[in-house]
């Protein structure tokens, strides 16, 4: 007799049933009809360009902790310099090489800083994936949003670098033009998130 694993694989209905796009569309209509076309939350309305973004970085879960190790220190609010710069995967004229910790592949940073602390209206701690983890929502000034939009529009498909105190904390790939708000996500403890948000907020 065949093993349970083999029997299961052979009986798997997905092997024998074609995708049903019509049913998918029907379910989508039902689900969307249950939605209210309301703004997501009041703080989003503060986004000056009416456009918001999520800066999603799985890397921060790993890298963030190594940069902000625990909550043992006091909050040094003014100590943190927050920067977003455009970056490249290949070397070029005027680009500064940066080797992310734990990575064999370097990143090449543009000399111009696109966004820094002065471009931020507010950085605050928001709920994360569960009660023990927190993210940081960053709202840009109109000028900061305009600069980020201009920079990212011509940089789609290429990386950008997020630095805190000159250390690379994330190198996300730009998938679309961004402005307005950013959400830095990554399994922070409440104390770590408070510390980072306080550090970013001070100009």
């Amino acid at each position, binding site marked *: 007799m065949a093993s349970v694993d083999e029997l299961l694989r052979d009986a798997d209905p997905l092997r024998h049933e074609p995708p049903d796009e019509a049913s998918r569309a029907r*379910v989508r209509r*039902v689900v969307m009809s*249950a939605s209210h076309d309301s703004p997501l939350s009041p703080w989003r309305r503060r986004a000056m360009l009416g456009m918001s973004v999520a800066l*999603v970085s*799985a*890397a921060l879960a790993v890298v963030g902790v190594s940069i902000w190790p625990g909550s043992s220190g006091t909050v040094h609010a003014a100590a943190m310099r927050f920067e977003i710069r455009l970056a490249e995967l290949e070397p070029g004229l005027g680009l500064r090489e940066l080797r992310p910790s734990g990575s064999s592949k370097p990143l090449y940073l543009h000399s111009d800083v696109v966004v820094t602390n002065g471009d931020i209206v507010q950085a605050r701690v928001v709920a994360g*994936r569960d009660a023990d983890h927190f993210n940081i929502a960053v709202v840009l000034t109109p000028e900061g949003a305009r600069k980020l939009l201009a920079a990212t529009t011509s940089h789609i498909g290429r990386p950008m670098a997020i630095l805190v105190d000159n250390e690379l904390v994330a190198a996300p790939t730009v*998938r679309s033009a*961004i402005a307005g708000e950013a959400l830095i996500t990554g399994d922070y403890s409440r104390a770590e998130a408070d510390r980072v948000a306080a550090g970013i907020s001070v100009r």
Partner: protein
Amino acid sequence: MNAMAQSLVVPMPETAADRLALLFDAHYDRLYRLARRLATDPDAARDLVQDTFLRAARSLTSVPTVRQDEEAWLVRVLINIARDAWRRRDVRRRHDVAAPVSAAGSDVEAAFVARATVWRALDSLTPRRRAIVVMHELEGLAVPAIAALLGVAEVTVRWHLAKGRRELSRLLTTQGEHHGKR
């Protein structure tokens, strides 16, 4: 770039409807695959997925914004809905479904019946155990990945896997004997 290569910049939706649409488009296929393997037929699977997204629509603010966490949230909701339905089902019927489907004539039909019999044997597993068996055996997910997705300890996943395999093996052996006696 290791973990950093996973970083993405994606547009964040402005309204609840946009967010729900993005959520649906990003996760429907994955949820349907799981639901189909937890359900007896495609209609039941679609109902499961639909109820999952309807629950997300009702409590959109509690859905996490990171993709992996979104997926884990939706998968857990889907399994909970499957569990509620499974509990509501008449206990006797639940055990009946593990009984062999009646034999058929041609080889094609016989193969179909054999597959249906195996599939229906899965119905006697609790939805969480069934999901763990399905994710491991059919989706090829490793134990730590399943544990992270479901928010349980790896030892719990291993325990469900072992119990699930044993239960299925016992059921299928019993059914093999049934067939042999015919």
